[in-house]
């Protein structure tokens, strides 16, 4: 089954190989349910479309680059740890896609919480269309939000599924979670990566067969809270960024 994340990437013509796009097009022609999902997603994403981006003057671009360099140095100084390669075996399959995603989950909003508060944000924006760091497409922020919202919805409806469906669904969520965690690492957004890593043991526990219903409910409730907080934080930071322009 084609995930919401991949549909989103297809919509934005970003992060998919030509072969994958062809595969999607074929699937869209032959699968009515998928076509309906894609149409609904397109409508939703169109509502979020941004005003046309006006190219920034070259002197401002230079200032952005300086700001990014400064932020990167600050982040490196505050982080003694080096980024590790793959954390889990099953990351391997996702390397191709995550490499594309590496262009940037728009989680730059979290950087401010990792010791980069001194970035001259105002210098980084020139108009309503340039309210985020260059090189980090907004589509990836939305990709992360969609992933978290989907996870939230799916977890809320877990009880309606059989154990086999539940396990399969949770494994899908875990796979996508790992993909975004890897992307967050690559985009120098360690706080997001840590949060996503923290979700995994809970998801794995929920996927196991031997968990008592009360324990499962408690874990779902905890995860719902943490996902909500994460979504709220992303929304707030994005909103703050917009208002700072």
């Amino acid at each position, binding site marked *: 089954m084609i995930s919401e994340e991949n549909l989103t990437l297809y919509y934005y013509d970003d992060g998919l190989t030509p072969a994958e796009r062809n595969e999607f097009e074929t699937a869209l022609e032959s699968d009515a349910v998928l076509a309906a999902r894609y149409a609904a997603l397109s409508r939703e994403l169109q509502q979020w479309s941004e005003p046309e981006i006006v190219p920034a003057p070259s002197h401002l671009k230079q200032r952005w680059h300086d700001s990014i360099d400064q932020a990167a140095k600050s982040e490196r100084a505050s982080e003694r740890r080096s980024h590790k390669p793959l*954390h889990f075996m099953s990351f391997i399959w996702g390397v191709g896609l995550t490499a594309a995603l590496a262009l940037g989950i728009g989680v730059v909003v979290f950087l401010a919480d990792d010791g980069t508060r001194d970035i001259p944000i105002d210098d980084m924006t020139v108009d309503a269309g340039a309210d985020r760091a260059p090189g980090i497409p907004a589509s990836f922020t939305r990709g992360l939000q969609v992933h978290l919202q989907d996870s939230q919805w799916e977890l809320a409806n877990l009880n309606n599924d059989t154990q086999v469906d539940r396990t399969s669904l949770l494994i899908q969520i875990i796979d996508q979670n790992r993909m975004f965690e890897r992307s967050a690492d690559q985009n120098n957004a360690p706080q997001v990566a840590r949060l996503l890593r923290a979700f995994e043991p809970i998801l794995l526990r929920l996927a196991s067969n031997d968990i008592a219903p009360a324990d499962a409910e408690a874990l779902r409730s*905890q995860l719902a*809270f943490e996902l909500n907080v994460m979504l709220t934080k992303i929304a707030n930071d994005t909103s703050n960024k917009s208002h700072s322009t």
Partner: protein
Amino acid sequence: MHLFPKLILATLALTISGTAIAQSDDAEQLKIAALEALVSAPDEKALPIVSKVLAGDHSDEVKSRALFVLSQIDLPESQAILLDTARTAEGDLKHQAIRMIGIGGNPDALKGLAEIYSNGDANTKESVLHAYMISDDVDSVYALAASAVSDEEFESAVHTLGVMGATDRLRSLPDRPGASESIIHALAIAGDYEGLRAYAVDASNPERQLEAIHGLGIVGGEEVGPTLIEIYRGTDNNDVREAALHGLFVADHDTLVLELFRESTNSEEKADLLRILVMMDSDAAIEAIDAALAGGP
């Protein structure tokens, strides 16, 4: 713009200080909703409220949610409270506080976990390892593995290194009697083909060799097949051959098993290989069955 956070703060303050409010589910849910909304408030305003919740007479669930909010507050005081809770709390709250230190990723708080680990029970130690995993703190996990005082501690730390993909650290662990099995398992978890191959082709320690061959099967991939074939062909040890065959089965290299079937001149061995092909539900099995029935190679 600022009205909503203020309202939320007011609601929260009322909720958490209102001792008259019954501890009903609704009140509990309201507290949790207020805590969730608190993430919108400035850190300086949120911190005292969260601290008050943690110090107050609230359920573990509410306090646990407060700990998560605390982990999102980027102030030194928040990390100090988390560390203090991790040291002094009992049961689930203690484990949650440790987890939140991992999520927070503050280097000083992470250092503080070392003491909690050394004084803690098995569950606490496991929580600390999880926190290090969440924060990607390979150095700390390596230090715990290298200084482990029991086999259980060593195995848990090594397993965590495997989950973290810290293959270099796994290979550089100091010698420890009976440690190779844990390390091989961790290398398999980390998907470290090269590390496993080194053990798998080394016949000086048969038990370790068998574990490594199993590990190669789990890791899988194109490069694993030829290595397992090389091991299979290069040994007279039946256990090693069986392990290599099992590795090919697990790694789903049916064409290589068919290759072994074709080149074998031993009917007993051919029967074993045929059984494996059938178990693999492979098209190659049909070819092999055809060949066996036709009496050909």
